[in-house]
């Protein structure tokens, strides 16, 4: 395929690659500790961009939420209606929620996986899921909407979930990194890598200086 389609049809991956190169390069060659941390943040941002761009579809909505009319077809007046619904009815249909101790769970799993083997057989296990959903006692106001949804209208939710976690982890790492930098600055007086290494070199006996608490402890011995 010629370069033009390659470039346009995969624009997001190109940006992701460039960001990653910048990130890695910054981490490795920058001298200032803060810049290294920024490089790490760029690197993580690149991975997040990769995941999120993965999830988009041509005409899918950017945030996968069911439109209001689809969920509540008629007016939502009788909210209290489903409360009297006997909720215990036909609960068992939810095969994955019955109180499955391992063996059954085990058995269920192997069927699930055998189902994987044949594509078509696969389809009807999902069919069971839907019938199971049907059977579940829920207020009749909410008819199962599974089959009335065209999957291509909605973006894939999974990468968004994963990246929510990755962003939070990135923030946590950033926080700890910055606190370490502060402590390094206080101990060595600088946050330039080369100056720190010099300070370590001419520290009295190469870093064997005791922490104040340890000195106190050593004297006690």
């Amino acid at each position, binding site marked *: 395929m010629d370069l033009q389609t390659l470039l346009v049809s*995969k624009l997001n991956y190109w940006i992701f690659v460039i960001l990653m190169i910048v990130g890695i*390069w910054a981490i*490795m060659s920058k001298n200032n500790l803060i810049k290294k941390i920024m490089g790490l943040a760029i690197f993580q941002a690149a991975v997040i961009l990769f995941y999120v761009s993965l999830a*988009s*579809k041509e005409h899918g909505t950017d945030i996968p939420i069911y439109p209001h009319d689809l969920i509540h077809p008629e007016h939502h007046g009788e909210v209290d209606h489903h409360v009297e619904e006997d909720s215990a009815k036909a609960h068992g249909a939810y095969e994955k929620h019955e109180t499955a101790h391992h063996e059954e769970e085990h058995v269920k799993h192997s069927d699930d996986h055998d189902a994987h083997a044949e594509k078509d057989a696969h389809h009807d296990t999902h069919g069971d899921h839907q019938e199971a959903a049907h059977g579940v006692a829920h207020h009749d106001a909410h008819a199962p909407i599974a089959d009335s949804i065209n999957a291509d209208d909605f973006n894939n*939710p999974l990468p968004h979930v994963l990246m929510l976690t990755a962003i939070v982890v990135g923030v946590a790492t950033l926080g700890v990194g*910055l606190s370490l930098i502060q*402590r390094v600055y206080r101990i060595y007086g600088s946050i330039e890598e080369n100056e720190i290494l010099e300070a370590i070199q001419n520290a009295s006996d190469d870093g064997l200086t005791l922490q*104040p608490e340890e000195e106190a402890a050593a004297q006690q011995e």
Partner: protein
Amino acid sequence: MKVFQTIIAVVLGALLIYAEADFPAWASSKSPANAGELSQYYIKNIYDETLVPNMVTAVLADYRGYDTLFETVVVFTAGLAIFAILGTGVMREKKTAVPAPKRIYSEPPFDLIVRISTRMLVPVIQLFALYVLAHGHHSPGGGFQGGVILAASFIMLELSSDLRAEAAKLTHRMSIWLGIIGIVIYAGWGTLSLFFGGHFLDYDMLQALFPLDPLMARSHSMLIVEVGVAFTVSSIMLLIFRQLVSGGYSIPDKQA
């Protein structure tokens, strides 16, 4: 020395580009990830199984609830870690290149306009934060976003006025307490379902607690879990901000 790094970065870039040729086109709904069995199932069945219109919150809090639990643990750990690194014991460090500052913060420029406007804005922001937290089922939002906006409101308040006064109101021990409450809500709710015979974090079992059908039990437990997350995230983000700003010195804490 820079040459070596650039070579490595370029090699990594080349490696990624080599794989890129094999990628599906951007935003193609036929790509294995989007057309895969997993995402198709999620899109089709989320509402039927959890009564939560926002698919992301459903997957986040219910299908992959264990992931989110450990995500909250990561936030809490970051708070603990920063507190351990910069926290109380540091003050007695004598042999340091940079002596402990006499004055903890520079006095923020007293500016009446800034103080008054922030004092007006903060309640609105906090209300919006609670809205984002509570409305996470129906619109983009949820525990993390709500918690962060809440923390942002506190930080704005601190930035605008004297940090030390604000710190006195919500000491670092209090923020750790809030973090703990958040995690206990989340993990406790998950362990609760153990006692009702389900697996860990299986909200379905909890419909025995409420006179609701399992679907409503699921969506409500998701809300409770989101509240737990909000607690932890807001308090820990505030703790991180305060530690970083004061470098661990200022905490007017009786116990330090």
